[in-house]
């Protein structure tokens, strides 16, 4: 929909303080980071060269992309199921689903990560329970590895994945579903051949948001990965605060931001921003 001119000026005025804040708090400091990446320790493209040739950096990039992809698939699938219940369930089901979606927002990411450690560690709830019913004899390694990272990140991201899906499901014309059933299609078939394809824009939006968020995760992989599955954000942290190799850390940051920017551009070619809320 195209707003009138005064609509748009009004919206721009309302957004101005936020834009100003974003420029001052993010864009300006980021320019400093860009500068470091070309100047530290010596001016030139050296840091980017090191980035390409460093096998550690590369393996972290690959791991980050892999984890982000798996987390995206897990989160979007789970979010899809929850959203179907939230948008189309009975009144009681709706309330329950809404509760499940909103509660995680009230618990800090740190608390949640430690919560998962408590659940998944060798002497945690899951392992003791599985052992007590005799399902396993040795505890399974569920944290301080990629599995734990994926569980923790998915748990964090599912609520975010819900909103684009809910928006797509809400705008769907109920009569199209009735039409499918009236033409002889079972509920199952209608779901897979009509409902899911019609919520495609929501799935794309949800997947993009989840994927982009996953790339920048820091706390969850740091705690649940136990240093064994380092992701990009943690690597940047290590380079800047521990090595200290500011130039390389800055260069990795720049590559990450450019990559995310490209993904966002791609996203908005397929979905309108309004469909994401």
């Amino acid at each position, binding site marked *: 929909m195209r707003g009138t001119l005064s609509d748009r000026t009004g919206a721009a005025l309302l957004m101005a303080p936020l834009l100003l804040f974003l420029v001052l708090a993010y864009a300006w400091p980021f320019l400093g980071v860009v500068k470091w990446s070309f100047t530290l320790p010596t001016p030139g493209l050296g840091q980017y060269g090191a980035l390409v040739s460093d096998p550690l950096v590369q393996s972290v990039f690959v791991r980050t992309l892999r984890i982000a992809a798996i987390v995206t698939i897990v989160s979007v699938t789970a979010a899809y199921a929850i959203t179907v219940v939230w948008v189309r369930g009975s009144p009681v089901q709706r309330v329950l689903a809404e509760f499940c979606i909103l509660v995680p927002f009230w618990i800090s990411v740190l608390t949640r990560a430690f919560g998962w450690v408590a659940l998944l560690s060798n002497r945690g709830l899951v392992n003791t329970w599985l052992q007590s019913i005799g399902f396993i004899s040795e505890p399974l390694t569920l944290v301080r590895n990629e599995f734990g990272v994926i569980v923790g990140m998915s748990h964090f991201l599912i609520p975010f994945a819900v909103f684009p899906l809910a928006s797509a499901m809400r705008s769907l*014309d109920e*009569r*199209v579903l*009735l*039409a*499918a*059933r*009236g*033409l*002889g*299609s*079972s*509920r199952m*078939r209608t779901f897979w*051949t*009509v409902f899911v*394809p*019609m919520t*495609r824009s929501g799935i794309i939006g949800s997947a993009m948001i989840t994927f982009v968020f996953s790339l920048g995760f820091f706390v969850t992989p740091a705690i649940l990965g136990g240093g064994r599955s380092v992701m990009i954000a943690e690597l940047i942290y290590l380079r800047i605060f521990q090595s200290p190799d500011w130039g390389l850390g800055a260069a990795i940051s720049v590559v990450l931001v450019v990559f995310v920017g490209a993904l966002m551009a791609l996203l908005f070619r397929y979905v309108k921003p309004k469909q994401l809320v």
Partner: protein
Amino acid sequence: MQQPGRAAEIKANGIGKSFGSFRALDNLTLDIGRGEFLTLLGPSGSGKTTFLMILAGFVQPSEGRLFSDGTDITDRPAEQRAAGMVFQGYALFPHMSVEQNIAFPLKVRKKSASEIKSRVGEMVERVGLKGHEKKLPAQLSGGQQQRVALARALVFEPGVLLLDEPFSALDKSLRGQMQAEMKRLHQETGTTFVFVTHDQSEALALSSRVAIFNHGKLLQVGRPDEVYDRPASRFVAEFLGEINMLPVKGVKPADNGATGVCEDRAVNMRCKAEKVRGDAILAIRPEHMSIAPEAAAGENGIAATAVASTYLGAATKLDLTTRQGAKVTVSVPNEVAAAALSKGNSVWLTWPAEKGFLLPDGGQ
């Protein structure tokens, strides 16, 4: 092509539907004949869509039973009834091409690929969509989307086709074209059509019978000429088109109809006065009244003065006031209207006895 006899015969028996305390449909009993073109006509909110949804199986009636070819189908889910349905706003699958939309009901029925191809091709041709097979619904005009919806609903040869205001979004000329096309499709397929509209001229033009609804009640069912010329109530009379209402006094049965006094003149009616005695309303359609210099003795006529005219092209609508102050509208040839207006004084309005009918005074 559909074999005749596949068309369904539907019986609604005492169907009612409540939404909470709201009565959307009340004790509706209606037989829909095999291969009939029945139109459900009524104002907004009268329960037409609700009844159609009950026929399709999307809405469960609160009471009453529904029979198709003698079988009770009240509890049968929509996907097993498989009535063809065209929704208000078409409800096409937006992610499927024209071809895929039309093929959908056949795929659901697990028809062979070759059968699907030939039947979809035939249907595309029949509704005039050749060359548009690969397009998505969003790339089609309103009229074309309408045709896809019709094709999709007819391709699996349903026993009954349900249509909910299919033409409401189309402009007038396209509407006329689609009406003609639908009549043709009805004749070609021989299927039972149940068609919802709130446009009375559309209802009269298309249907073999018209069912008139108001406030969830079925008021009258009959052939278009029956309901138009012999409405059972004032509501039906007014809903089906413009009508003049004149008070009559002293109505009593006569040799071949009834007599009464209208504007101090004796008038004759051909309709029976069983239900109506004493004071009543005499209703006459505008096109059945003519302007005359005099009313002969024994002819139905009242004196009136022309006050305004509206040029309609083929005819002129003339507004008149009778001596006792009743407002009357007639539709007359243009030059007759001009003459009546230029005289500026009294003319006579006459009508044949068989064109006037009696309605209870003040009744609905």
